[in-house]
C-alpha cells in the first residue's frame, strides 16, 4: 500500500505547529496503524530527521495510552476501538490520512501527537477511591453484591482513560470519564460512605481543569473503546443533585 500521512508536527508546547506530508510506500494491510507510523519513523531516522512523537504502550487496547485523531475522528474510522487496534486494511491504497493529536484545552500538546492528560489523574485524586487502608478488609463474601449491581459497576469501571471522549466532544467535556468512575464506586456498597464527597470533589476538579460541560450529543460513547454509555452522565448528574441535597 502507498499512503500519504498528513501529520501534525509541533516541537514543544509553546511553539507553533504545522501539518507535514509524508508519503510512505510498501505498507501492508496486516500492519497496525501504529506499526505504519513505526515504519515511517524508521524511514525518517535513515533520512537523518527527527522521529514523530506519538504515544502507545500495551498495543492491545487496554492501557489507554495511545490516542490520535485520525481523519477527523478519535482513534480512527471505527467505533469503539483504540488507535492500536486499528489496522491498515481499514484504509484505501493511495489514501491521504490526516493525523492530529487530541484537541482540548485541558490536554495541552507536549510534542507532535503527544498530549498531557494528567488532568485525568487529578480528577481521580479527588476521590476516585475507597478510603480503607491495606489490612483493614473484612472477609470478601461478607459483602454481598447482586450480579446485576456488580455487572453494572463493571460496565462503568471498564474505562481505560484514553481521553477519546474529551477529544471528540465539541465541548471538550470529561463528563463520560468522570461519571464512569463515580458510578463504578458509588453503585457498590463499599463506595457508599464517601459517595457524596466523591461526586462533589471529582466534578469540581473536572471544572477546575478546564473541561467543558456535557450537552448530550452522544459523540463520546461512539468513540469510547469500551462502549461506556452516556447514561452514566445522566446518572452522575442525579448523584450530584442527591449529593447537593443530602451530602
Amino acid at each position, binding site marked *: 500500500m502507498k499512503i500519504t500521512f498528513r501529520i501534525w508536527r509541533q516541537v514543544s508546547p509553546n511553539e507553533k505547529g504545522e501539518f507535514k506530508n509524508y508519503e510512505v510506500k510498501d505498507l501492508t494491510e496486516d*500492519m497496525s496503524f501504529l506499526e505504519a507510523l513505526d515504519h515511517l519513523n524508521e524511514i525518517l531516522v535513515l533520512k537523518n530527521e527527527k522521529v514523530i512523537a506519538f504515544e502507545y504502550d500495551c498495543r492491545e487496547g487496554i*492501557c489507554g495510552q495511545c490516542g490520535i485523531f485520525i481523519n477527523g475522528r478519535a482513534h480512527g474510522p471505527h467505533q469503539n476501538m483504540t488507535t492500536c487496534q486499528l489496522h491498515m486494511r481499514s484504509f484505501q491504497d493511495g489514501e491521504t490520512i490526516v493525523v492530529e493529536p487530541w484537541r482540548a484545552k485541558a490536554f495541552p500538546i507536549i510534542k507532535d501527537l503527544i498530549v498531557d492528560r494528567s488532568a485525568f489523574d487529578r480528577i481521580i485524586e479527588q476521590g476516585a*477511591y475507597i478510603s480503607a487502608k*491495606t489490612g483493614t478488609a473484612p472477609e470478601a*463474601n461478607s459483602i454481598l453484591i447482586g450480579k446485576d449491581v*456488580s455487572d453494572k459497576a*463493571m460496565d462503568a469501571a471498564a474505562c481505560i482513560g484514553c481521553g477519546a471522549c474529551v477529544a471528540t466532544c465539541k465541548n471538550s467535556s470529561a463528563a463520560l470519564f468522570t461519571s464512569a468512575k463515580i458510578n463504578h464506586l458509588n453503585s457498590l456498597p463499599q463506595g457508599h460512605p464517601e459517595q457524596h464527597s466523591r461526586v462533589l470533589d471529582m466534578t469540581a476538579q473536572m471544572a477546575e481543569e478546564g473541561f467543558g460541560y456535557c450537552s448530550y450529543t452522544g459523540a463520546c460513547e461512539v468513540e469510547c473503546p469500551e462502549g461506556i454509555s452516556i447514561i452514566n452522565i445522566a446518572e452522575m448528574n442525579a448523584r450530584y443533585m442527591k449529593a447537593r441535597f443530602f451530602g
Partner: protein
Amino acid sequence: MSLDAKIPEGNLEEKWRNYQINSELINPANKKKLHVIVVGTGLSGAGAAATLAELGYDVQCFCYQDSARRAHSVAAQGGINAAKNYQHDGDSVWRMFYDTLKGGDFRSREANTYRLAELSAPLIDHFTQQGVPFAREYGGVLVNRSFGGVQVQRTFYARGQTGQQLLLAAYSQLYKMVRTKKVTMFPRTEMLDLVVVDGKAKGIIARDLVSGAIKRFAADAVVLATGGYSRVFRLSTLAIGCNGSALWRAHKRGALFAAPSFTQIHPTALPQSSEAQSKLTLMSESLRNDGRIWVPKIREDTRKANDIPEDERDYYLERRYPSFGNLAPRDIASRAAKERIDAGFGIGKLKNAVYLDFKNAIEKFGVETIKDRYGNLFKMYKKITGVDAYQEPMQISPAAHFSMGGLWVDYELMTTIEGLYAIGECNFSDHGANRLGANSLLQASVDGYFILPNTINNYLASELKNEQVSTEHPEFAKAEKEVMENINRVLSINGTKTVDHFHRELGKVMWQECAMSRNKKGLEKAIQQIKTIREEFWSDVKVTGHANEMNTELEKALRLADFIELGILMCTDALQRNESCGAHFREEFQTEDGEALRMDENYSYVSAWEFMDGEFKLHKEELTFEFVQPSIRSYK
C-alpha cells in the same frame, strides 16, 4: 559470596508469622523521616507505594508512562488465584502451595511459595473492599473459574479485564496518597541508574522524558517494581515500553540476577502475521476452560477449519494429557503446540498457529453464556483479526510472556544490594521454572501490599540512626556522569541502521535459540551472534534528535542496549543448566515421549549471576525441600 535467603524458623505454616514477630518495628513519628523510592506503578509498585505511604513513609514513585494507570499489569486478562475454597472443591493453602511449587517444577523456595498461597485469601478481601467488581453469582457471592495446571476452581476474575480492575484499584489508592502529599508522583520519568553508597542503595538517576533532563533522587531505600523483560524477544505479549533497564543497571551495580533464562512462553497469543509486527496480543488462558485446542490430522491441510470433520481433528492436548487436557500448564501447552507446528501441522497464513475452538462449548452452554464469560475477548479478537470467533475457531500461537527470572531476592524481597528491593515480576522468587496462570497478579499484589511493607521496616529501622545521603554525594555525581556519557555515546554514533533493526535481529536470535526449546550448540552460537549484534549496535546505530528534549528514539536505544547484554546472560544461564525443568527445555534432556527430564541431583539450585567486568560469575542457592518431596511433574 554466600547466598542467605534468610528463611525464618518453624513449620511452613509458622514461618511468616515468626518472621513478623521477630521483625524490627519503627514508630510512626520516625517513619515520617524515612524516604523510599518506588520505581514502577504496576500492581506491585502502586500497591507498595500506597501502602508504605499509609504507614507513614515519605514515598517518591516513578513511571515511564504518562500515567501510573498504564502499567502493564493492566493487560492481564484472566484472573487472580486465591485459596478461599469457596467452591468447596478441596482447595486449601497447602494445595495451592503444592500446585504452585509443582507448576514451577520444584525450582522455587518452599517458604516463599507457601507465603504466596497463605496471603492469597486476604488479598481477595482487600481488593473486594477497594471496589474491584469481581464476577458474582446472582445471590451476591463471588464466582471462581479454573485455570491451567490445577484441578480446583480458585481463580477470581472481573470479566476478561482482571488486571485492569486490580491495577485501577491500586492506582486509585496511590492517588489517594498523592492527595495526602505522602506520595510524590513522577510520571514520564525513567530510571537510568542506581546509586549505591557504601554498599547500600541510596537513590536513582532518572531522565525526565519530556525535557530530557537528568535528575538525581536520594532515599533511604529503593524498591524496584519494574516488571518483566520479555521484550528482549522483541515480539512478546508485553507493552512496547516494558524494559529490563532498571534491573540491568542494578545488576551492574552489584545485584545478582537469578535464573534469567526462565521465560514463560504463553500458548494462547495471536500469531505473528508479518515482519513489521511490533507485538503479539495475548488471548487469556481462561479461554482454555471452554475452548478446545486442535490441529488437522493431515499435514498442511488446506481446508477451512469448519470443513474439517471431527474425526480428522487432532485434539493433541487431550490426547497427550488426558487428565488435564486443554488446561495443561502453559509451558507444556506451548511446547505441544510447537511440536505440532514444527511437524508440519500448523495452520493459518504462515502455518505458525493452532486452532482454539468454541464450537462444543457453544453447543453445550449457548452463545449467551460464552458471551458472558469471554465477550470482550471475542470482541478484541474480531477487532484485531476481523474474524468472528463465534462462527469459526480462533487461531493462536505461542508468544514470549512472563519472566520467572529476575533479581535474586531473599525472604524479605531484598536483593544482594542492601536497601534495594525487587517486587513483582522483576524478582525471582515464587514461580520457579514456570508460573501458573493467574499467579502473576497474585504475586505482584502480595509482594506490594503485604510483604514489602512488613519487611522494609527491618532494614529501615537500622537506617534511622544514619544520616540521609544527599544528592550531592560523589556517588550521585559519578552515576550521573556515566548516564550522560552513555546517552552521548549512543547519539554520537550516527550510523546507518535504526534501533528497531537491531531489536529485530536480537529478537530473532533469542526466539530461535533461547525460547521454547534450547540446545548447547544453539545457545553457544546465540551468544556469539548477540555479541556481534552488540558490536554492530555500538558502531552503526543511528539515533536522531538530542538528549535535552523529548526523544522517543533515544529511549528505545537505551533500553535496547541493555536488552542486548541481558540476552547474553539469558543464553549463558540456559547453557549452564544441563537439565530440562518447567519452561526451560533443553533438547538434550528429555524423556522418550518428549517430556522434560529434570536432574535434581545436580541442578536443584537457583542460579544467581554476578556481573564482573562484562563477564558473569555463577553463584548457587541450593534448594532444600523440607516439607515436600519433589516429584516428577506429570499432567498425563
